[in-house]
């Protein structure tokens, strides 16, 4: 199977780092499409499972033959960023709705309602995450994989190419750090 995504993945593997930027929009749109489709078919009130969504996107874009963890790692990296944008868009739109403004068109229709409080929390967390990324991108990536895609610790460690122990330590620190940052603002 040779499509855009596999081509990009090959390029990334070959060391062409700029190819990573090509991956994100494809994954983002695939995830949005998938999410929209799923939300349309789901009964109201049902929720999406980010992990399942990302895995399905992977199967659709790359196929099931590929059992290559390296590919997965890059893919999940892009998916984490994409999911983060989808969810933060959603939270922002919620916030602007509550302020009486018009709903931003970027938000996915049909995503489960979140409370204003949760939306604000998410946005604050996102801002703190940006700050963390500026200081320590590995930790920020770990948080994205865990929080926005729902990967577990071992999967995240594998995706980031770090040991499980390091992942666990990073997680503990990043969690406390982000929490402090959010409360500070």
């Amino acid at each position: 199977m040779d499509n855009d995504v596999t081509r990009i993945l090959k390029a990334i593997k070959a060391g062409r780092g700029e190819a990573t930027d090509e991956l994100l929009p494809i994954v983002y749109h695939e995830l949005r499409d998938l999410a929209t489709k799923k939300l349309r078919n789901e009964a109201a009130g049902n929720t999406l499972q980010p992990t399942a969504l990302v895995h399905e996107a992977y199967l659709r874009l790359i196929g099931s033959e590929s059992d290559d963890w390296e590919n997965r790692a890059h893919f999940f990296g892009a998916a984490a960023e994409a999911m983060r944008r989808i969810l933060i868009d959603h939270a922002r739109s919620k916030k602007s709705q509550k302020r009486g403004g018009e709903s931003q068109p970027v938000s996915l229709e049909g995503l489960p309602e979140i409370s204003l409080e949760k939306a604000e929390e998410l946005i604050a967390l996102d801002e703190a995450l940006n700050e963390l990324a500026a200081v320590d991108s590995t930790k920020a990536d770990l948080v994205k994989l865990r929080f926005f895609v729902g990967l577990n610790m071992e999967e995240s460690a594998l995706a980031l190419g770090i040991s499980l122990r390091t992942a666990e330590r990073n997680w503990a620190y990043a969690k406390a750090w982000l929490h402090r940052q959010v409360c500070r603002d």
Partner: protein
Amino acid sequence: MKANEMDHTTNQEEQIFLAVLELAPGTDREEFLKSKCGDNHELLKRVEELLSFHQRGDNLLDDTSGGFGMPTVLAADTIAVGTQIGPYKLLQEIGTGGMGVVYMAEQFHPVRRKVAVKIIKWGMDTRNVIARFEAERQALAMMDHPNITKVFDAGSTSSGRPYFVMELVTGLAITDYCDREKLSLRDRIELFYQVCVGVKHAHQKGIIHRDLKPSNVMVTHYDGVAVPKIIDFGIAKAVDHSLTDKTLFTSYGNMIGTPEYMSPEQAEMSGQDIDTRADVYSLGVLMYELLTGTTPFYHWKKKGIHKFCDAICHEEAELASTRINNLADTVEEISRNRGTDVRSLKRSLRGDMDWILSKSMSKKRNERYETAADLARDVKRYLDGQVIEAAGPNLRYRARKFFRKHRTSISLASVIFGTLVIATIVSTVFGLKAISARRLADSRLHEVDQLRKQAENERDRALAAEQKLQRLERGSRIEAAAARAAEKFHRENNDVVIHYANRESNRNFAWAGDSPSGEPPVIELTQEKIAHGLAPEVRIVGVQPPKNDERFRPKVGQPHEFSVLIGDSGDVTVSNDGSQPANTFQRHGHRGDPRHLVIIQDKDGTKQYLKSYVNELRESFGPDDDTVVKTLIEIGNMELNDKDWSEAENSFRESRDILQLRGKNDEQMARVELLMSKAQLLQDKHALARETLKKGVNHLVRLRQVPRELVDVVKEISELDVHQHELQELLPATLRSELEEKLQKNIEIEIHQK
């Protein structure tokens, strides 16, 4: 602060923070912090701050589910069917779970057979998993029991994922099986008993399952007998908690699959060794679910995995019999699936079952049954009607059991009386022996508890009686309305009308034709009269009254009339095709059997009768009662059949107006609008029909489905040529395809029946 300075501070802060987390228990944290930070108070403050955030429980990140508040489901990575793994060729995916994907596979060497291959998901430490499995292999090989599936082999795939090869079991998870077969409580408990016996065997061989849950207990049929098979013995131990064994970081603990069946000591992840009592706990949860349809803490699930585990460790589970009270809208279905009603379900659970479950699921493991063998023994005692161990040596309980066993000779009253007498004697004796005050208080508390339960019982009974009374009352008012309308019809037409009344009132009337006295002879139909073709002035013909009622046997070979079938709730259907009235009634979407049957010779008379019946209903129940609407729709349908289009339109409009006043009921509104549109179409009122149709479709869209009973109406409208394209246009694609599918199914069913 410059960037590199900040990096440096961050780095220091992180190292000290992590070092504190890894401190050996008992180390003085303050001292340690002071020694690390020296006189850098800023640093000390920052680390302390981080530590305090670390300990807080409200971290948004703890909900690692993408902010949706759902426990993360670890998606399994599939491997293509046809792939060869060692000597096994994957044939078909048969399931996924928290640990990985299970395939049906074919083994070629050394024997050719079908097996199940479970491929563990990514990220496990393959070598350790397999080493742990090998360590237990000897013990696993010793297990040989009909309720346990064997694990044959373990290995790793070419990409390094561990896999396990097991005996292939095809069947359903025990909970699904019981619900599908609608097994009674007793059957469920008997099946569960077999599960206990299987686990008991493993416990005797020193093997603990660690992950007992419905999906690990499959029910399959051997020679027509249901046999539960426990799968995955030995696997959970190899895979599960590979982390907790080797790291200090138990607080980051990771969990595989669902924690619903996990014992508190497992959910707590304190690294405590797991023993047979963890399995006993899981068995308790399994039985709880089999009996009540829910797991003890199911309502905590949506609060996230951490809160859920917290509940397992610290919340007391509701007694199974109490849970039944709190199930709200699902309780009817759950009772039905157990072939019983809510009240008897609750009654069967109260007492022994509550005791057994509570003991199995005690938070403290030393209060549980020691092994599955002890649990199995008590379940067996329960099934045999003997005194269970869980209740302990409680005199009163034993007395109750004794009386229950000899129920035939002792009336319920004397049981209560006798128990009280024994209780009194017991406390007197205890008093004489100067038992401690605490014990006395305990027994009083128990007494109060007992009384409260009795009161609850009484209240339930009164409630049920009240409901029954209301049903009966409504049924008899409907009967009266139907009878009055029948009598009126007879008066006005001097025609024979027959009204079979509600079976519960046990009386049936016929209003017969002319009589010499001028008074309409009201004849009560007795069983005898019906059997002998009735009184001479009444000829009852060609009617098949409610099925299963011996009194109403069809008279063969005589022309049939119109029968108006009325249920206890007022549902009405008109039948004249000579088929079983009960079937007609149910085909029209009504529940149960018709309870009233009014027979009238001709069609116009029937319509006339129905109209006066509607009036009677209005009198009895008010102008906007459900029965009024339903009857009006039925009249409209008859008028449609008779090609009285405008009459039909009026009937539907009348019912629409009532429905509109009553507020939202999309299904009924959709039905009425669609029918009205059809009547309008047939009068060539196209513009009007289109408007009405649009409204009807809007209701369908809101319903998000085309109810089965409306499929035909939609079909008929779309068959009225001119407007086919309009319906196509109005119906959203999703509904249209659903409709097509249903139509196809209907056609298939018809063909099949022929």
